[in-house]
């Protein structure tokens, strides 16, 4: 139905896309460490090196863990397996709440202690009106 040239061009494009997709996949795979925006407390427990490099930890703010001590905000980030204590001094975003997602940027002092220089609130994918939220909680 189609000429030889058409088939060749089709094959050429097909090969080009497969080659490109594979090489980009491999590049991203090897760069995974840098592509992720933050690490979970569990990942930090396993493999993080305690060094001077800036890094980010993300997870949930543990319920009833936020304490305000003079200038500092102290709280616990958890991924429900492991936890890490965070200390931060400064203003926190409005959506920073207990039981909600958070990303802390700063320095790891030891396996359990993180000194944050910046706090970002992570929003989850749930969108609903307040009445629906109340109804859900009432259940």
């Amino acid at each position, binding site marked *: 139905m*189609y000429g030889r040239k*058409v088939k060749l*061009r*089709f094959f050429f*494009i097909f090969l*080009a*896309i497969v080659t*490109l*997709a594979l090489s*980009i996949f491999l590049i*991203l795979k090897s760069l*995974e460490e840098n*592509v*992720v*925006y*933050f*690490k*979970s407390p569990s990942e930090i427990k396993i493999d993080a090196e305690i060094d001077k490099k800036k890094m980010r930890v*993300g997870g949930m703010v543990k319920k009833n863990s936020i304490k305000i001590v003079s200038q500092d905000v102290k709280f616990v980030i958890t991924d429900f397996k492991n936890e890490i204590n965070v200390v931060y001094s400064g203003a*926190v*975003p*409005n*959506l*920073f709440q207990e039981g*909600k997602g958070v*990303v802390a940027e700063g320095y790891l002092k030891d396996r359990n202690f993180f000194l944050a220089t*910046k*706090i*970002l*609130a*992570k*929003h*989850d*994918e*749930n*969108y*609903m*009106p*307040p*009445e*629906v*939220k109340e109804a859900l909680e009432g259940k």
Partner: protein
Amino acid sequence: MFKYFEPNKVFSITSKAPKYVLIFFIIIVSIGLIEALILSPEDYKQGNSVRIMYVHVPAAWISLGIFSMITFLSIFGYIFKIKNFFLIAKSFAPSGFVFNIIALVTGSIWGKPTWGTWWAWDARITSMLILMFFYALYLISWRIYENKDQIYKITLIITILGFINVPITKFSVDWWNTLHQPASINIFTKSSIHESMLFPLAIMTAAFALFSLLIFLMKYNTELIKIKNKGLDRI
């Protein structure tokens, strides 16, 4: 099947259609804006800043969709040697580029009150920025080259390279930890967005799609006029 394409017949459509598409767009966008800004509820957590989503999400969808479309048009144009496909792709690109910028800007405006930052180098946001650069490269390459065959080849390469980025953008939130939240709308599972917010989102998406169609028709019409006037540059 593509051989029977007649510029004159198409021209009679593209020169008249924009009027009607414009009227339709104004109606839909008015309904969409009333829904999104007034009638839809506040979010339990974000409050009123959820309304930015009704512009941000459709803009991001449309820009990704248009880039995929111009890639397929360029590929089919190349394989079957249909120059018209390249012109259609060229006419679609500007609105995709504009929606890409809108998605980035509205995302930034939403990010400041929600996350506490204007910008984060996470996978979703960065890949969207890369897509914007690919759009820019695509549009510029139509302007700097004179020779049509050269343009077709270069835009084909740019679209294929940029297209690899499209699934990366889409799935970045699932593959890696990102600051950006995962998709709320899933085709196969229940969406994590309440119905009262889904409706304005759908209307705004339709409105933006119509706007892209409108800009496309106007751009494509201009291309056809150029061909007619020159009389040389046959499709």
